[in-house]
């Protein structure tokens, strides 16, 4: 998928020039595509070239299993299969999900402390069995723990991967929880029958009040994915395009704690307001207004949360309700998420939001300079 970027030196009103350019494109892109290594294969080679010394990561979110674990993936898969045969499917799924949970501190903490509700709902379509093993919900996130076992299909073609798509979570009264990120074990499945596991996150900000229980319906599609669909075999595509699962279940709701702050700080002529901080077992989320960067204007933010002698970091703030092409007004609310188990923490917290100027396509005249740092100090009861 390549856009035509000849503007500026080619006159497209000239048919001869257009014909020449078409000829040049044909010549220069006529090579047959090779069998590119899959992303997992490339990652494995990268890990091998790094001598197995994987960098410590600050954040481990949407990612396959850690490289060290991926190296042991066939053994773990075999072990999981053995467990399924000897101790039942539940034990195998539990093993995979427990391992996956280690990718993120907050989810790991939830699993460790038995905060997930066991559901164990299974549906089988065309030999694919999706099991909703467990679920959890609080005022920041709803998280589903899912395991999929696959039949012995023919190879997927070159580079195709099995992927969870079009996730949709909805409450009984119609409130939609937008899909957020998901953690995967290994989505480039080549061994028939080896299970895929995921913790799927949904944004629970739209849940009003503090219901004791949520009645939820989840709809999930599972399919062979690639940017070039021809890389998935026809069989994989024809089968997987129709794999739509639906589950209904009840899960306890944890409202967490909300610190309403409305604290404003002015730096470099701009006023930013920390509206509130929502602390739940799955996440600590700060809501901010006055942050003035958009989707394409070349700015970004970096946030730090300091409490009890430790500092936690977060990537870009994201606009509440999602990114749009319409730009963002001063009143737009943004959220910054920290995926750490901080619900037991109280007392004095410090949140600093640093906005960086960065250009796109070389347009920025002030690259690499912080526009300012807005620091908020507050007490969480």
């Amino acid at each position, binding site marked *: *998928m*390549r*856009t035509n*970027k*000849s503007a*500026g*030196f*080619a006159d497209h009103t000239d048919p*001869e*020039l257009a*014909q*020449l*350019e078409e*000829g*040049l*494109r*044909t*010549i*220069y*892109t*006529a*090579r*047959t*595509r*090779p069998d*590119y*290594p899959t*992303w997992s294969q*490339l990652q494995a080679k*990268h890990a091998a070239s790094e001598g197995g010394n994987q960098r410590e*990561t*600050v*954040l481990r*979110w*949407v*990612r*396959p299993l850690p490289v060290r674990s991926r190296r042991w993936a066939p053994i773990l898969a075999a072990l999981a299969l053995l467990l399924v045969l000897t101790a039942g499917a539940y034990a195998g799924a539990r093993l995979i999900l427990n391992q996956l949970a280690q990718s993120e501190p907050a989810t790991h903490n939830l699993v460790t402390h038995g905060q997930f509700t066991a559901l164990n709902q299974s549906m089988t379509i065309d030999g694919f069995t999706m099991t909703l093993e467990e679920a959890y919900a609080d005022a920041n996130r709803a998280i589903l723990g899912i395991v999929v076992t696959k039949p012995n299909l023919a190879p997927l073609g070159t580079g195709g991967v099995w*992927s969870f*798509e*079009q*996730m949709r979570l909805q409450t009984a009264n119609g409130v939609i929880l937008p899909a*957020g*990120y998901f953690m995967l074990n290994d989505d480039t499945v080549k061994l028939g029958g080896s299970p895929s596991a995921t913790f799927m996150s949904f944004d629970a900000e739209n849940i009003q009040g503090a219901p004791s229980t949520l009645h939820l319906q989840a709809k999930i599609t599972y399919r062979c*994915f690639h*940017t070039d669909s021809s890389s998935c075999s026809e069989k994989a595509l024809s089968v997987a395009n129709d794999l739509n699962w639906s589950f209904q279940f009840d899960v306890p709701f944890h409202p967490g704690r909300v610190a309403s702050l409305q604290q404003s700080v002015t730096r470099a002529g701009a006023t930013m307001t920390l509206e509130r901080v929502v602390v739940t077992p799955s996440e600590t989320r700060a809501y901010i207004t006055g942050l003035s960067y958009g989707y*394409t204007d070349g700015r*970004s933010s970096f946030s730090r949360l300091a409490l009890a002698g430790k500092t936690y970091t977060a*990537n*870009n703030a*994201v606009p509440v309700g999602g990114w749009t*092409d319409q730009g963002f007004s001063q009143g737009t609310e943004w959220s910054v*998420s920290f995926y750490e188990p901080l619900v037991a923490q109280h007392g004095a917290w410090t949140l600093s939001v640093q906005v960086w100027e*960065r*250009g*796109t*396509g*070389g*347009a*920025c005249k002030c*690259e690499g300079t912080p526009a300012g740092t807005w620091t908020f100090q507050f007490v969480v009861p």
Partner: protein
Amino acid sequence: MDHRFVLSALRQNPPQVNDAETEWAETEWMEAAKTDLAAFEPLYLRYRERIYQYVRLRSPSDEDAADATQEVFLRAMKALPRYQTRGIPVVVWLLRITRHLAINQQRRQRPWVSWDALPDRLQPTTEQDVELLVQRQEALERLKIFVGTLKPAERELLALRYAAGLSAPEIAAVIGKRPPAVRKQLSRLLQSLKERYAHENQ
């Protein structure tokens, strides 16, 4: 943008390459990939084809080009911690790595070819009529010969433009020249080729 959401969105709706939003998202992926390599996956899926088409021009075989393409991405992943945006699109950064690799390989190994190992067989894809197809095939063969007579620097411009799919400012960033100079050079080059190509096709 948070790459966790980007990955999910990309899988459901792969975006067009190089529009402003995508460029912004790519910057975010690169930053995220510094701490989480999984964020680099969309960039690999997006650019491997363009890197391959470019590197194939200097490789003696398809297999060598595929290996070199893989090596480009391995080097990129290794260089990720040192990556700084500085307003440079990711594709430019990757092409810089590619050029360095190709130049170094060429120094070490004779089998690496000079510009350009254009394909032996060209297959136009649009015409259905056999006679038109043959004519088009012949025209493309002539164009290939014209390209072969160009200076190496001129052929490199064409390779970056049509194999790697770069814009004039991106080419300038890769080869270290000013965008107006590259634009002017490309414009002159295309004009010259057009006159010869049109004349031969008459």
